[in-house]
């Protein structure tokens, strides 16, 4: 049944991708989960890339050519991600900003490697993405070994003698992050009391919550996305469990608050320092606000991914993906996130994860 669904989607996509761009335009791609339960993150990626392209075109595009944006939807499904990637390769785009889920970015990157496409992900944090010695993979965000390190250290410091539960959703991102956090926690000599997995897309976590309640868990660390984390929190509170919830960068969407309501207050999460507050982002943030978009979460990361590509293309004087990739690796780039530079693997140098807290009014800010 799901196969049918995917092939029908792929068919729709191939129709959408057919007949693009005239010869004097450069077409680039942005791919994220525009449908499915993580659609709010897909929208962040799309919004960011769209504005970046509009801003670049207002200044005359790159190399004298206008940029066209091709939007792909992978629904955070690895199979669909691969299919979308093949379509992008078929449309001969030199560059894709995406994807969102690590479990999509990684299989897609193989297709991009074969098809000679440069991929800069604004949001996929799983270390594997850049660890496979591929020339075409870059990211604008941090890595889960860094993020997990920060979370693990925090747990060790504040909950040393308390009962810690670590949960994950079995996804590449979720399990990766949970394992890195566990590793960092165990390194300090502390040990979690419970390590459990749940299933993505589930709605009922009551059994798991009762089990944690019985184990007197004081703090729950979740490696997973906001929909399940929000439901786990709701069901925890409904059962009268007061434990602290801590999670990662997949909670930085206002949709988390719409799931939890007031019960989300006090939830902690790790993310890069708020990009909206950076002086370099001020003008862009205002443009978003004028369009009635809150550039939260990874929106500005997506904007930055397109910026880096455009600057590298201008510097290399070609859109040839391999040459652009070399240029990206070697240069320094002025983005909305501030100046960025890359190491050999394609990770950005100097990343700092900080803790955020969800406040009573439904917004989050740095702790």
């Amino acid at each position: 049944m799901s196969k049918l669904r995917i092939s029908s989607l792929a068919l729709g996509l191939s129709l959408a991708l057919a007949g693009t761009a005239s010869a004097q335009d450069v077409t680039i791609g942005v791919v994220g989960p525009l449908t499915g339960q993580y659609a709010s993150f897909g929208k962040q990626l799309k919004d960011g890339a769209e504005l970046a392209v509009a801003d670049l075109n207002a200044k005359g595009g790159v190399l004298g050519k206008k940029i066209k944006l091709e939007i792909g939807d992978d629904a955070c499904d690895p199979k669909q991600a691969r299919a979308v990637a093949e379509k992008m390769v078929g449309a001969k785009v030199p560059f894709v900003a995406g994807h969102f889920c690590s479990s999509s970015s990684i299989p897609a990157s193989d297709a991009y490697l074969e098809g000679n496409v440069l991929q800069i992900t604004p949001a996929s944090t799983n270390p594997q993405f850049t660890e496979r010695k591929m020339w075409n993979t870059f990211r604008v965000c941090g890595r889960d070994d860094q993020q997990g390190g920060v979370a693990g250290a925090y747990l060790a410091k504040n909950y040393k003698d308390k009962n810690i539960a670590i949960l994950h959703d079995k996804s590449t991102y979720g399990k990766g992050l949970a394992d890195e956090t566990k590793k960092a926690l165990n390194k300090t000599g502390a040990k979690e009391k419970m390590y459990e997995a749940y299933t993505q897309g589930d709605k009922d976590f009551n059994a798991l919550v009762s089990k944690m309640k019985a184990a007197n868990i004081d703090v729950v660390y979740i490696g997973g996305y906001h929909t399940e984390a929000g439901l786990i929190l709701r069901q925890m509170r409904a059962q009268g469990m007061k434990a602290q919830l801590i999670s990662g960068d997949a909670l930085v969407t206002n949709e988390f608050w719409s799931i939890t309501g007031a019960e989300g207050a006090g939830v902690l999460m790790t993310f890069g320092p708020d990009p909206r507050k950076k002086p370099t982002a001020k003008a862009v943030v205002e443009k978003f606000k004028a369009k009635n978009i809150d550039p939260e979460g990874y929106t500005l990361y997506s904007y930055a991914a397109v910026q880096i590509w455009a600057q590298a293309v201008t510097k290399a004087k070609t859109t040839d993906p391999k040459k652009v990739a070399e240029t990206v690796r070697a240069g320094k780039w002025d983005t909305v996130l501030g100046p960025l530079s890359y190491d050999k693997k394609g990770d950005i140098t100097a990343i700092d994860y900080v803790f955020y807290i969800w406040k009573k009014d439904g917004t989050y800010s740095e702790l």
Partner: protein
Amino acid sequence: MEIFVQQLINGITLGSIYGLIAIGYTMVYGIIGMINFAHGDVFMVGAFLALIAFLALVAIGVTAVPLALFLVLLIAMALTSLYGWTVERLAYRPLRHSFRLAPLISAIGMSIVLQNYVQIAQGARVKPLPPLIQGGYTLIDNDVFIVRLSNVQILVVVTTLALMAVFSWVIARTRLGRDMRACEQDLKMASLVGVDVDRTISLTFVIGAALAAVAGIMTLLYYGVIDFYIGFVAGVKAFTAAVLGGIGSLPGAMLGGLLIGLIETFWSAYFSSEYKDVAAFSILIIVLIFLPTGILGRPEIEKV
């Protein structure tokens, strides 16, 4: 012990919702021998209609929770029934005398149509509803563990039991129920003795959809979050429940639903939540090996 009681509460609530959906599968199978794969998506449509009705009621100023709840129940059941009826009329009735696989394939098509329709019309994002029914009772409170029974859980279980009672009465005591039982035994014979077969089948779909709508409302109230995809997972689980209980048997569907809910819950509680689906389906397979027609299913008697 306390933990056992809490998990029992969790499992019965979850199982009740599965059971309500499972009835729709089992009824349709009983009468026309077809698996209505679109039923899970009818459940999803019911949940969305309930959410829209809630928001509409709030917009026109109906904020008293019991009244709003009652109205939403009526509106969602009525509209979802209409969906159930339309699905049967459009996708299955024209294929009634076609080869056996045809309605099955159009059911899968219908499932995709409903899902994509809701996705396009309502957007792909999850739709939350703030908790309407709060509070609950503390059943056991010793130093070790507090057993909580929330008002929503009471509502889910009581509504399910009440509907089951009404529904069993309809089947056993009314004209419609007699027609349905007649159709279940032999469609052709029933039509020969004056049962309006088409009408009976339509009403079967309508009742199934209405019960799925109730399950949708309960999901919305209990979990507070719905999306266009919930029909798929719930549909698979409820279908499993119907098969486990014995497809075609009404008490079997309810029993199967409860069992699946309890297996999932207790497996998560005492083993690992990672493998709860594996556990539920393994038990299904084991049961089917020893009781091929399910727990309460009657063996198919070859008619001469």
